[in-house]
């Protein structure tokens, strides 16, 4: 995942406010959290910024798969070990007789399932990082040995 600084360095840095943000730095923050799109900065669409724009696009590309919750599963890294399935507190709460005790999920209320050796996330709206009582949960990120789960 790129850093705010990396994105900022590629912006026009004129603080012209055309994007609706007060500074380019503020816009970079919004870009990173996917609340704004590159096109919202109209100056960067000019030809002279072509190289910078392409760089920005490629930096932001890997996150395209993220849904509204910002979770990305890098399937190519996943080994299907199931650590996230068993560790996610939502899975524990919703499937006490299955995922919570290390077995295969027994219902469709869990967030993580493994199909063909790769994890698939669903019910993401249940994730503790969202909703009004949100907490910054790391229970699927920390147990993953390969860094296959990311929030952007």
């Amino acid at each position, binding site marked *: 995942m790129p850093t705010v600084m990396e994105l900022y360095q590629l912006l026009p840095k004129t603080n012209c406010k055309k994007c609706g943000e007060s500074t380019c730095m503020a816009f970079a923050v919004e870009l990173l959290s996917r609340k704004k799109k590159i096109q919202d900065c109209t100056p960067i669409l000019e030809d002279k910024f072509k190289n910078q724009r392409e760089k920005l696009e490629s930096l932001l590309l890997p996150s395209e798969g993220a849904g509204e919750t910002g979770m990305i599963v890098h399937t190519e890294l*996943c*080994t*299907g*070990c*199931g*650590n996230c*399935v*068993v*560790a996610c*507190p939502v899975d*524990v709460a919703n499937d*006490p007789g299955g995922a*919570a*005790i*290390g*077995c*295969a*999920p027994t219902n469709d209320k869990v967030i993580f*399932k*493994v*199909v*063909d*050796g*790769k994890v698939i996330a669903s019910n993401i709206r249940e994730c503790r990082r969202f909703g009004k009582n949100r907490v910054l949960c790391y229970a699927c990120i920390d*147990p993953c*040995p*390969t860094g296959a789960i990311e929030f952007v």
Partner: protein
Amino acid sequence: MVTCTGCALLCDDIEVIVEAGRIKETKNTCLRGAGRIKGCVNRLVPSIGEQRVDVGNCIEKAAEILKNAESPMLFGFDNSTSGAQVKAVQLANKLDAIIDDTSSFCQGIMVEKVLRQEFRTCSLDDIRNKADVIIYWGSDAQDSQPRHLSRFSYFPRGEERQRGYEEDRTAIAIDVRESNTAKICKGHFYRIPLKGDRRFILALMDALSGRVPKFDGYDVQKILELSGILKKAKFGAIFAGIGLTYSIKDDAGILADLGRMLPNFHIMPMIGHYNMRGFNENLFRETGFVNSVKFGSEPVHDNRYSIAETLREKSIDVLLVAGSDPLLSLPRSIAKSLAGMQVVCIDPCVTLTSKISAVNIPAAVSGVECGGTAVRMDGKKVELSACVESGFLGDEEILGRIMEAV
């Protein structure tokens, strides 16, 4: 539900979707297991020499080769059902042959200690329900038994471990490199120098008995800290990996000594091949040894009868291999002598060994195309069932028919 035969965890909570006689999708297997269940691209074809023939002819030819052999050897069976292993032992007995499996160059000595009750051990279910301290020692379970941490040791809630891994369990890794398993054990990773396992055990034993541990170039505080965690454990497990076994194989008893100082701890060898423990148990029951046995007036166990030694000394003239690929897994300097003998290969897939074999007999993939039983790494007997019909014979039937014909 299907049982996965991708490793010795034998996960029995697998679902498969079969379409037109083929496995289309697997649910709940790790990637390794999905590969095993979906099978290989290159199926072995029945052949004698280069010639494709009927399986029946292959079996007759194999029997003839074995019957005429001066010193035949049977090798493999770690990816075969227990029923096939029993047949293999009987066949070796009938032929006065040598029999061995991969455990002679990996975990055999550790499994033997378990079977001789020199280690205190327990079941994986005990670990899930009770363990508060688990140690992966020279083992990258995350890679070799991918669901080990999620199904049994660290992440699941257990009867006496209801509060989740962060509060209720401590996972420790002792290894020469930061493996994926060690990454998960974050704050409790003890990196030791290559071949340093024995010295580390001795230092740990010092710390446990209240002496100041000696270990050149190692932070003594860390060893004291580890010894403190182990002393407080209510139910501990040491998973002895291949890294530890290689490093202390000349004096594996030292691990038992450590075990004696840790009365709440249990030792379990980490096993890769799905039924290696089954082979060790089946041969042990028959002969009192876990591998490297020569049958004759009575069964004799000697390192001379291990696959590495028989090939190095070229002391055999015929080798029957089932479910193993010695040409791939043994060092080239030893494996090259395979070229000078007659090899009979029984396997579902084309392997390096099958390419130099005199006779190839294709087999069903156990746990997918044929059923049976197998022994999980902790000694639990697990049922395997067939989920697709392939028409290939299982190892058990192939070995049975060879036996009838010799």
